[in-house]
């Protein structure tokens, strides 16, 4: 009998770095050359089976990267168990944006959140502006997972999600067997209790 865990994953990052493409590749194994910019957020789920017989179901919140949706981001990453912060290796400015997202997550989100830094568009290595070493060094400093992916070719996509899935259960106990709503989750999940508190504080700060 395999155990199934359910985790909430949120994707953050600058506009047009490929968050939605990454998710599309991960969930449906598709790629779309001309993708519309995300409005608000998109919600998808995907289950990853691990070697140890457990399976992890990701509830993926693919947020909009445009600046005007920034104020909504806390709604999406609150209660999130893991976050994938995406940058574009051909845009050094997107790494800066990723840094600021990571800072915000560390400050506002649940302390136990697993953050992965993901350099997308590795198929465009010829136009690379962000070196692997630079990003890797930063990730190590902050204690983040790191990987480079290409949503277009599919390289590294499933790897990084699997890596996250492997890392998660060690930190957080299964939140719920089935999606039983927030009340049920709060009853069984120690982490979620913490998160509720955290989000309360965070919202007070944000009432500007």
């Amino acid at each position, binding site marked *: 009998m395999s155990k199934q865990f359910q985790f909430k994953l949120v994707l953050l990052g600058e506009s047009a770095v490929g968050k939605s493409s990454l998710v599309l590749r991960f969930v449906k194994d598709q790629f779309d050359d001309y993708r519309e910019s995300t409005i608000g957020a998109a919600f998808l789920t995907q289950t990853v089976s691990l070697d140890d017989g457990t399976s992890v179901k990701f509830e993926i*919140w693919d947020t909009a990267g445009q600046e005007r949706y920034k104020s909504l981001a806390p709604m999406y990453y609150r209660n999130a168990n893991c976050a994938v912060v995406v940058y574009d290796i051909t845009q050094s400015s997107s790494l800066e944006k990723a840094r600021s997202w990571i800072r915000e997550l560390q400050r506002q989100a649940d302390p136990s959140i697993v953050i992965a830094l993901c350099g997308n568009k590795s198929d465009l290595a010829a136009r690379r502006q962000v070196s692997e070493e630079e990003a890797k060094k930063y990730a190590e400093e902050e204690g983040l997972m790191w990987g480079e992916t290409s949503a277009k070719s599919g390289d590294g996509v499933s790897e990084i999600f699997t890596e996250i899935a492997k890392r998660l259960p060690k930190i957080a106990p299964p939140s719920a067997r089935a999606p039983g709503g927030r009340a049920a989750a709060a009853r069984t999940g120690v982490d979620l209790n913490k998160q509720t508190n955290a989000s309360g504080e965070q919202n007070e700060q944000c009432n500007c």
Partner: protein
Amino acid sequence: MWQNAVGNELALSKDAFKACMTRANRALSSGSFPTAVLDLIEDDIKNTLPSLHLFMPGTGPLYQDLKDMLCAWVVARSDEGLGYVRGVAKISAMILLNMESAPGFIVLRNLLERHCMRSFYGGISSKDDVEAYYRIFDTLLADGMPKSTYLAARRQKNANAHPGLVDISEESDPEKAQRRSKRKEVKAKAKAAKEVKEANVAEMEQLIAKLQSEIAQRDACEVVSRRYTSIADPEQLASPASSIEEMEEPVVPPSSPIEEIPDNVAMVQGEAGNDRDGSEASQSPFDSDTDATDGADDMEVEETEVEVPGVADAAVVPGGALRRSNAAFFGRNNQGEAVILDRASSGDSYDLHVASEPLSKRQNQPKKRKAVAHASDLEDDIPEAAAASGTKASDKRPAKPVDSMFSSSLAAASASAASRASTPGMLISSKAASPIKATVLPVLKSKAPTGMRDTTLMDVSVSADTSITKAKGQKATAVPNQRAPAKPERPRATQKKRPATSDVPLPNIKNSKAIWRGQVVPSYIHFVATLDNLWDADSTGEEIDALQQSWSTAFPNHKHLVTAGTMIYKVDY
């Protein structure tokens, strides 16, 4: 911030949400919570900011919060028996995006307890309140903006003319339709009141105009008799007065003042303002040679008799047949003065240059240009323009235009004096060989000394108006939209087709102003707005085509060639 902005007039405690939530949960678990309300809430949540996915049932991170808040809100109002109202979910959602549930609940309750909000979110029991608000609004609107109220009412009537303004509310909600009909009643009342008011104003203006004209005439008598006794034909001097008197007889207060009166007013004003001082001033240098100019008049007739059906008489520029405008498009500026859209300096409301030049009349280029000059003359009396028209005319034929105009006015004047009993409109065609068929002179607010060519013509135009009014009286069923082809031997026949509306910009086209504003301008603006860089809009190619298309769609029966003018700017940056 929202807490502070909304306040807490209800003095709810911080625990209000918790208390209501507890009651709601108890009701939910015991099954006493009305399922209809619950379904309504669920349904409303589904339609709440769906693209954000935040309130998606089941997975949305804020779904449960929203549902809790709405249930608590229903419970909090349950003692008043108000139930849930569609739309509260949206407000709650906005609140929840900005704050936690407990303070958000206090904000929601206080916000929806305010005057208007309480009525609009009070469910069926506050229907009367809502209607009262609508009535108040309509009354205020009709009072503060009578014109737009009237226009809105009219727009509703012929919604087909404005495909963009299709009202869908009636189909969707019978209640709304009811409200709408009530509103219409109120509007109709306001309209009636306004009509009475306008009728009074028009009457007053007529009186004033009459007074002014009398004064002007007296002055003219004095000046002319003093300075030019040699030509002072007493009949000629008497003529303006006579034309006024004759004119006023047919100007019966029309049945629908809104439609009719502005024309009359404009007519009277134009006459009063321009006639006298113009003729008085203009007589000096051009007091000779009536015969020669009569010849010139005849020439004009010959030239203009080649009438093309479909030409908008509309763009009639004062100044006689020769000056019948092929180029100007009349509008009105804020002061109600006639403006010609050709002109850049006037700051008028229409920035589009429509040269309403009929395709088939382009060969008359020189005439056209002169017409423009005249138009500008009329508008702000620019000396260069006058000079231009003068030179233009002089190189075209020996007699100066002023001469001809003056003589025609003389002819008309004397004729009217002679045959006072007969219809004043007739005398033009009989005596002056009717070169002046195009002198409807929409609005000419008397601006001090207007060009004399224009003003001398006014006599004729007045009589033309009179005859038109008479014709209308006889034939009330004349369809203004259709334009009969002009008959060569009697060019004035077209003139009698007077539009039944007060739309001055394009006489002969019903509602032309409304169509211009409601269709041509918006469609062109729409085109400009879809340009990649709308500052690129210049007067070449596409823009002209677009404007042409707008025009052709709006006025399919009135073909015009849109040409580039000075008003379509290319912005350099």
